[in-house]
């Protein structure tokens, strides 16, 4: 039985002694903690907005909770104290007014108790009396389990204040006020301290009504707090919006910058930290734009220079190239040194013309001025014509394996350059026979040129498409311009395709061109 009796509050002394102890009431509403950060998914489950709203709600909840708790406690004490004071003083008065006679007559005492019990103030109470082992009560049972030994001890020991003690007890969920008043008699002198009779009266009063009042207060506080929380959501959302809008703008701006729109700026207004951030972003963006513009200008100047040089070289070359035949024809009739010099000039003029043309071609790619003139053609025909035109018809030199009947949309001139450069390269740097394969794979046209040479050295492999890349540093010049594979790469790219170089495990280099059909 005792186990379920829990003192609700420290016992107080005197009537007004019921002082509040630490009331454990507080806010335990914990903002749900941050779980493991989700990776960069679009909707952030614990994004800034959620966190801001949660923080606002948390603050609002703490505020409401604290206020409610303080109010509740103060009001509760006021209510309980009033009840206690009334009850204790009323009980004491009634006990004082009793003319208790010794020895105790249980029957008489019981009648007295019944009388006192009827006059419970402010509410009905049950009255018990204890004297030694004697137990008398106003009810059926001689004693109450609500009266704690502690109260009994207090009533017995309390010499200084024999006016009464009280205790609030909760039993089986029902709150009780228990009051103990020892019966005294004024012996010998009126001034002397009252003497105990040993008889102690107890009153037990239910505090359900007060508890109900307090419940009502809690309910009221809660009913007030919930709308307050709901209202707190509005400034939370507004604040979140205020923070998130600039953040979102910043994100869009950064994204847009990342995609190359360097003139992206953010509308920076206000004087808060986010506006500072926006201004910093704008300044950095402007700086970046300036640097990039400078770089681009420098690059454009370099490209224009290459293009201009080629242009300027072309006109004298046009005159020179037109007369190389004259030189070649007449070289035979000149003395041998002059003839050699003349033939050298003729040959080099031809190479120079090729080089300048290739440079022009590369310049056009760099300036993005290269145009694709696509036509729907028979791919096998196209490759066959390329080989025929270059006189690569000797089957010991070049072996075509062409899938017939593939119609492809491509620029025939550029495709011719691609195939011719790859086959020419294979014949020059690899070994015959060079195989040219052509087939369709899904929506791709695959052209593969393989030779039987030593293959490409791993150090060279990453650079085969570089301009003027020399695999062998000692070799100063190859038969080509040094731009052939670079031009091949650009032409394939222009078609939206890819070209790769690799070593065949069985020996030889393999170049594979994949272009959309």
């Amino acid at each position, binding site marked *: 039985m005792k186990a379920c009796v829990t003192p609700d509050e420290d016992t107080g002394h005197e009537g007004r002694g019921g002082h509040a102890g630490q009331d454990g009431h507080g806010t335990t509403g914990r903002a749900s903690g941050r779980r493991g950060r989700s990776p960069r998914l679009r909707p952030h489950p614990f994004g800034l907005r959620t966190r801001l709203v949660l923080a606002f709600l948390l603050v609002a909840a703490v505020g409401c909770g604290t206020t409610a708790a303080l109010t509740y406690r103060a009001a509760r004490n006021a209510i309980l104290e009033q009840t206690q004071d009334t009850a204790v003083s009323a009980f004491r008065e009634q006990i004082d007014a009793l003319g208790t006679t010794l020895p105790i007559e249980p029957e008489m005492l019981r009648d007295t108790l019944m009388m006192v019990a009827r006059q419970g103030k402010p509410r009905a109470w049950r009255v018990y009396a204890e004297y030694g082992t004697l137990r008398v009560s106003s009810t059926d049972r001689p004693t109450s389990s609500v009266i704690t030994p502690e109260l009994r001890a207090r009533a017995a020991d309390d010499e200084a204040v024999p006016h009464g003690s009280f205790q609030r007890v909760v039993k089986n969920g029902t709150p009780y006020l228990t009051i103990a008043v020892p019966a005294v008699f004024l012996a010998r002198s009126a001034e002397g301290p009252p003497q105990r009779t040993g008889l102690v009266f107890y009153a037990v009063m239910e505090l359900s009504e007060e508890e109900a009042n307090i419940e009502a207060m809690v309910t009221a506080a809660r009913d007030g707090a919930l709308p307050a929380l709901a209202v707190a959501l509005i400034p939370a959302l507004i604040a979140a919006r205020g923070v998130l809008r600039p953040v979102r703008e910043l994100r869009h701006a950064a994204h847009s910058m990342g995609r190359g729109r360097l003139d992206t700026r953010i509308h920076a207004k206000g004087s808060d930290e986010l506006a500072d951030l926006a201004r910093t972003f704008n300044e950095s963006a402007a700086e970046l734009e300036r640097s990039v513009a400078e770089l681009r200008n420098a690059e454009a100047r370099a490209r224009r220079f290459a293009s201009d040089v080629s242009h300027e070289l072309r006109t004298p070359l046009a005159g020179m190239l*037109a007369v190389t035949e004259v030189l070649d024809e007449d070289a035979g009739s000149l003395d041998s040194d002059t003839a050699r010099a003349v033939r050298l000039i003729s040959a080099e003029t031809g190479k120079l*013309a090729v080089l300048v043309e290739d440079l*022009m071609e590369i310049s056009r790619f760099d300036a993005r001025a290269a145009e694709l003139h696509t036509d*729907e053609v028979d791919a096998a025909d196209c490759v066959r014509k390329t080989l025929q035109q270059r006189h690569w018809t000797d089957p010991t030199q070049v072996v075509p394996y062409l899938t017939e009947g593939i119609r492809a949309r491509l620029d*025939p001139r550029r495709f*011719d350059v691609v195939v011719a450069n790859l086959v020419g390269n294979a014949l020059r740097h690899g070994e015959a026979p060079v195989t040219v394969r052509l087939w369709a794979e899904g929506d791709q046209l695959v052209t593969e040129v393989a030779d039987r040479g030593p293959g490409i050295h791993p150090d060279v492999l990453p650079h085969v498409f570089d301009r003027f890349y020399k695999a062998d540093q000692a070799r100063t010049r190859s038969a080509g311009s040094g731009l052939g594979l670079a031009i091949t790469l650009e032409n394939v790219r222009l078609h939206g395709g890819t070209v790769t170089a690799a070593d065949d495990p069985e020996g030889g280099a393999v170049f594979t061109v994949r272009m959309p059909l």
Partner: protein
Amino acid sequence: MPRVLLIEDDPSVREGVELGLRRRGHEVRTAATGEAGLDALAEFRPDLLLLDLMLPGINGVQVCRRVRESSQLPIIMLTARGDDFDVVIGLEAGADDYIVKPARTEVIEARIRAVLRRIEEPAGGRAAVEFHGELAIDRAGLTVAKAGERIALAPSELKLLLHLTAAPEQVFSRQQLLEHVWEHSYHGDARLVDACVRRLRNKIEDTPGDPRYIQTLRGFGYRFGPLGPL
């Protein structure tokens, strides 16, 4: 040997090309400007005009237009690759072919021969005059008339029309036409064909936008006819 008028402003190109062609037996007259070239035209009466596009004063395209106003003289443009836009304009203006500078004399001469070839050697052994709808084509006389009215066709236009009408309703790819009509490589510039077809349509079609004689087969090429009922 054909007589060639070369209009080229750059002295070294002018001299080089002249020297090269003369060595191959051509009779060459040169002019440094478009105006001088137009003046020389009447007096020299060339078989072919080699015309640089970039000229001071009136440019090559304008010279081309002026020539076409009165004559169907074969015209080959000299151009630098990369001047793509000029090439298209030159072709629209009526040039028959173009050569990219720098070029060897053998290349230039091959082009000259190609442009002149059919004109000199008309196909023999056919009915003298063929009729296709309103078109009357005289293969021997190398003349074309529409509804009895003679149409002046530039050499490339005439050759294209003769080639297409030799096999009516047969589809020719642009690459095939480049090879056979222009004697270019298969991988040549298909814009030559397209420009020539446009010019030809403007001359022989009733409504060039809705061609009846020279029809396009998208993705395949061109064919002559079928004419169908009007």
